[in-house]
């Protein structure tokens, strides 16, 4: 300890080797950094593409029209219209009339039809909502913003050219001219796209929304959580704390690890065979989707749960048993509370995995076109990743941006779940 050994290497060869060693370390570090940079580059590319494609989907082109809510045109009683009559009234004609009034010069059936096509064919729904909510407006003329057609929307957002006859442009010369006029009058504007977050799927892009898929995903994941959390925790507790260590439990462990690696589409086929064909559960329903997703995330949760319980020091178990606690008391009073953060983290990550799962849901018919918002887990429904898949498959230009918007919403939920997992771990992390 007193004598200091020479810092300089005794031989020239050793000095050369030392240099090589440092060079190897530098090369290794450089490799690592470039790998990370490459990964970040791809991530940035993905995000830029999605944001670039999808941000515009959060706004929607609207057209302002002076709509005369004329009782005769609507076909309802002018004095005291019933709620049913207001619900079934002819709002489409009212909107058309408002368009004709805005462009009095337009005559002829074909041209008038082109003119009316500037407004979304679903605009009558929003008009109906206005009148049903406030029947006193009947007979008055209101200045109302109505959703524009998706072709108009695309032209206004600059996704397709507004040059007549340009590639991808589906508007006629007349329609483009009318659009210019509307714009000059200030009657065209982009507003927040509420339909995207309040409605279900639609064939018309400007009316298509994610809410049905969000609700469907929520129902599916709730079922998944209800099934696989208790099942997963019970399994891991039994295997980790109670089961004898023998060939059978080894076999079970190997199989659980293997199940975690089975392609998810196989679980979808299993769900099809068991839940749909054997038990006869409803097709396209979040109930079945949730059960299939539970099968997929169960191995993840069991593995995470067992790892979390293994991390509880044996001394805690001995302390509890030494005091005369039964094995079950040891588990419920000490092992489970101490491993719960780990189990919860694993569960949330399993859930996040299940949220993004698509292929098995295609197998059980959750790929159907469903307009209605599901009211219960037994109703047919879409889920977010399948909605992305469906929209990506649609030919309309306007679905391109909506696909990206749906991906953003999906990624948002995934990120939230991961943040929750990290916060849980941070909050309950213990050191011994």
């Amino acid at each position, binding site marked *: 300890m007193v004598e200091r050994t020479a810092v300089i290497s005794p031989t020239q060869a050793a000095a050369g080797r030392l240099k090589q060693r440092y060079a190897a370390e530098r090369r290794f570090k450089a490799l690592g950094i470039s790998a990370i940079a490459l990964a970040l580059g791809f991530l940035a590319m993905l995000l830029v593409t999605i944001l670039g494609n999808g941000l515009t989907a959060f706004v929607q082109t609207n057209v302002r029209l002076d709509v005369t809510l004329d009782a005769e045109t609507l076909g309802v009683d002018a004095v005291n219209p019933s709620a049913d009559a207001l619900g079934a009234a002819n709002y489409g004609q009212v909107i058309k009339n408002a368009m004709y009034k805005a462009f009095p010069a337009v005559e002829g059936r074909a041209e008038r039809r082109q003119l009316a096509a500037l407004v979304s064919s679903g605009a009558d729904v929003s008009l109906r909502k206005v009148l049903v909510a406030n029947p006193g407006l009947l007979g008055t003329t209101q200045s109302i913003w109505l959703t524009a057609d998706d072709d108009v929307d695309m032209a206004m957002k600059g996704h397709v050219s507004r040059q007549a006859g340009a590639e991808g442009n589906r508007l006629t010369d007349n329609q483009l001219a009318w659009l210019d006029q509307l714009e000059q009058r200030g009657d065209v504007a982009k507003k927040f796209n509420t339909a995207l977050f309040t409605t279900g799927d639609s064939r018309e892009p400007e009316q298509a929304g994610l809410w049905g898929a969000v609700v469907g995903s929520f129902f599916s994941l709730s079922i998944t959580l209800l099934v696989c959390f208790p099942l997963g925790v019970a399994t891991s507790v039994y295997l980790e704390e109670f089961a004898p260590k023998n060939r059978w439990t080894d076999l079970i462990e190997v199989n659980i690890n293997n199940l975690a690696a089975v392609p998810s589409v196989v679980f979808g086929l299993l769900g099809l065979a068991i839940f749909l064909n054997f038990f006869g559960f409803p097709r396209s329903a979040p109930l079945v989707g949730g059960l299939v997703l539970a099968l997929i995330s169960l191995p993840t949760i069991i593995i995470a749960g067992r790892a979390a319980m293994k991390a509880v020091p044996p*001394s805690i178990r*001995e*302390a509890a*048993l*030494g*005091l*005369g606690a039964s094995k079950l008391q040891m588990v419920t009073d000490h092992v489970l509370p*101490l491993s719960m953060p780990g189990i919860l983290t694993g569960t949330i990550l399993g859930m996040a995995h299940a949220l993004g799962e698509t292929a098995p849901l295609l197998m059980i018919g959750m790929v159907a076109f469903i307009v209605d918002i599901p009211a219960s887990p037994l109703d047919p429904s879409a889920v977010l990743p399948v909605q992305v898949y469906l929209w990506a498959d649609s030919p309309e230009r306007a679905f391109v941006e909506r696909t990206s918007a749906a991906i953003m919403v999906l990624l948002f939920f995934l990120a939230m779940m991961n943040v929750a997992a990290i916060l849980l771990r941070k909050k309950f992390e213990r050191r011994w």
Partner: protein
Amino acid sequence: MNANTASPSQADRRLAKVSARDVNVFYGQKHALKHVDLDIRANDVTALIGPSGCGKSTFLRCINRMNDLIENAQVTGSLNLDGDDIYDRNIDVVQLRARIGMVFQKPNPFPKSIYDNVAYGPRIHGMARDQAELDEIVMGSLEKAGLLAEVKDRLEETGTGLSGGQQQRLCIARAIAVAPEVILMDEPCSALDPIATAKVEELIDELRENFTIVIVTHSMQQAARVSQRTAFFHLGELVEVGDTEQIFTNPQHPLTQGYITGRFG
């Protein structure tokens, strides 16, 4: 009483608190403890000494059946607590461990509050009818463990935040809270500094009044300081047992002499 023999007579057995006859322990093929006959007297501190791997911890863990937890561990022979067979089929191991408390080598308080650490045992055994009674048990146990003065203002703080010596005394308080008859201590001071060790040794001496204590230790000075009886184990066999003073001043067996004088160990 003949203190020097390694195989006490049948008559002694009735006087002993814990009595072992022909106890063998196998870990799979390994014969870890061989034909041990040992009587532990009530309100004595009995020290088990011997080199590493000699079976003293194994014997200790037989007394409260902690060996049950080890896969493929097998215990044969007879172990009695006040005449009841510890390994009887009808003995409830949970009840047994309430009568025989244990303190471990490394302090292992639960990551809960100091109060909850001590209260855990009484709670699971339903020893207190109301909160006041529980408070009394907890305070009394902390007092007996000599920890009350140090922690009475922070009973809600977590037990793992205490110093090593305090943690070990907390574990002792936790063990005596269930009012056991025997306390087993497995090298309780090996993870503590000399000052904390001195406090724990002092405590052991005080606890002798109310409890029967069996302590495994690597330190012969400790055995000499705290115990009245000492048993020397070697390679799974009980070599010699007797009054501590006699074992350390006048060992009968050459192996004991060799170990005590530091020729091996």
